[in-house]
């Protein structure tokens, strides 16, 4: 994964509460075989409403999304994170997230930033005209107007995002330990390998 250190750019001022995974990516996309290309189906129902933020040229290609409470609730489908990734969204800011969604987002290199409602309201306002800036190192969201909001971030997740390490990348750093485990096991329990013709 690409390391995520700072993100600077416009933000989709969505602001809606309880955006569930079905709104992020409808169920019909579940039978696909790829995790790319899903941006086309993202927020499909919302996009049918004229004047929606996603089709507003003002916000095209924004790397940040600002939403209301409980973003990503509903089913555990990882497709929701894949869809955001495919749209180029790197950070989602909301007062709260569903746990499963945050986990899936993190696994796919997307940062979820939890901020109090007042801060989110202020960012929504700024987003309509100006870019915002997210800094992982200092755990802050800032605007061109001296706003500065600090957010909490699990140290493990922070290290992974900063280093561009996905869970697999991290485990691959433990390859030495896995090798040793396998060698010991294969010696002690030679029968453990399946007999594959």
């Amino acid at each position, binding site marked *: 994964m690409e390391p995520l250190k700072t993100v600077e750019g416009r933000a989709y001022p969505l602001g809606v509460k309880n955006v569930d995974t079905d709104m992020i990516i409808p169920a019909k996309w579940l039978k696909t*075989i790829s995790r790319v290309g899903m941006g086309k189906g993202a927020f499909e129902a919302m996009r049918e409403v004229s004047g929606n933020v996603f089709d507003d040229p003002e916000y095209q290609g924004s790397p940040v999304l600002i939403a209301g409470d409980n973003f990503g609730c509903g089913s555990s489908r990882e497709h929701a994170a894949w869809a955001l990734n495919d749209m180029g969204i790197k950070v989602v800011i909301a007062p709260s997230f569903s746990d499963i969604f945050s986990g899936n987002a993190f696994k796919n290199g997307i940062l979820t930033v939890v901020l109090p409602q007042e801060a989110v309201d202020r960012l929504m306002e700024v987003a309509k005209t100006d870019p915002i800036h997210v800094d992982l190192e200092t755990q802050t969201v800032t605007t061109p107007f001296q706003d500065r909001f600090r957010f909490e971030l699990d140290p493990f997740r922070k290290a992974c995002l900063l280093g561009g390490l996905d*869970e*697999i990348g991290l*485990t691959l750093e433990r*390859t030495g330990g*896995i090798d040793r485990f396998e060698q010991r096991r294969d010696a002690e329990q030679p029968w453990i390998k399946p*007999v594959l013709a």
Partner: protein
Amino acid sequence: MTQARTLYEKIWDAHVVETREDGTCLLYIDRHLVHEVTSPQAFEGLRMAGRKVRRPDLTLAVPDHNLPTTARVDGEGHRLPIKDPEGAQQLAALEKNAPEFGIKYIGATDKEQGIVHVVGPEQGFTLPGTTLVCGDSHTAAHGALGALAFGIGTSEVEHVLATQTLQLKPSKTMEIRVEGQLGPGVTPKDVILHVIGVIGTAGGTGHVIEYRGNVFEEMSVEGRLTVSNMSIEGGARAGLFAPDEKTFAYVKGRPMAPKGADWEAAVAYWKTLKTDEGATFDRSVVIDAAGIVPTVTWGTSPEDVVPITGTVPAPESFADATKRAAAEKALEYMGLSAGQRMQDIEVQHIFIGSCTNSRIEDLRAAAAVVKGHKVDPRIRQALIVPGSGLVKLQAEAEGLDKIFLDAGFEWREPGCSMCLGMNPDKVPAGERCASTSNRNFMGRQGPGSRTHLVSPAMAAAAAITGHLTDIRTMAGEMA
């Protein structure tokens, strides 16, 4: 003396590669089963990152969920195309990914093809004391052989493919003990439905269940597969049975099982895999076998069970308000009213199959009931779907196919079939099915479908009478 440990703790400890400060372990995975629905994005992820499969020799792929169960080849032996373009695409992806990553693949027309959870044990791929995963929640089934087996999501499938490990925290332990004598007509399916009725669908959440007590000890390995399979319906991530002589006899001689000196060494190790005297479980449930009768579901959750002799419960009978509301909704969806006798409920479809009940013993039990009878004319479709090509061949060698066909059943190719509405076998909206599968969720067998979970013998009985039937009233028909 080391501390007394449960079976789960023994298997877990034997697979920990490393432990992180926060208690998360890197757990080694011995066996990985792959099917067409949850693997395409995992392989794509590997490809995008330029990664390989660490241990293709510990991985086995077989398609099952999407495959139609009608003939797969035409008269000349040519493959017949799959009509659903997305199903066809997922199958094609697996057919391409398995060889590309060096994974052994059992193809759609091979005689060993079948439902992953039937194929694994049948091939001797599933072994006692191993850790086994698959991108499918019913992976719990393999716990019947004493393997620590659980379902995983697509990112985890990719993680296992790349690293042969998972990052996990240990679960809590739970024992379910069923003691005493089971009554006539009570099968392993009735036992697990009854257990889920007792503990509820959240009863096992966060736990791994070990099934203990004389009833489970006396149960055949195939019966244990039925029980362990539905551990997930009780909220548990996995189920476990301590491997015993029955397990060893079941595994011995299977194609991928250890042979010769390896076999002896394996059995010696497997014999150590039991919960120590004095080990404690976080939770313990004891059930009297004599209280279990042939069981059916009335609602849309596997915990909605009643004895076949019972009636549809009234929503008011539930003390809990959420449960009351859920029952009202379930009754409306199921088209049933409180007080109706379960045995009066007519069904239009019969499904004998799924990873819960599609092995040879299940088909024998159903055939014993069917023999000499005809499917009731009011039944629109009665399907028998063997869990694998080998089960199908075995059944044909025993003449079971003939019994079913003579009675008016359809005899299909192996696959998940009507267990879930992902392939052409579906129950139409508003129609009712007596099904040997594991989930009676709304729409599980097709949009608007109504499911009653039952044992194979009870599904066979319903086919003959046209309504849910107490198997004990079909004198002399029980195997």
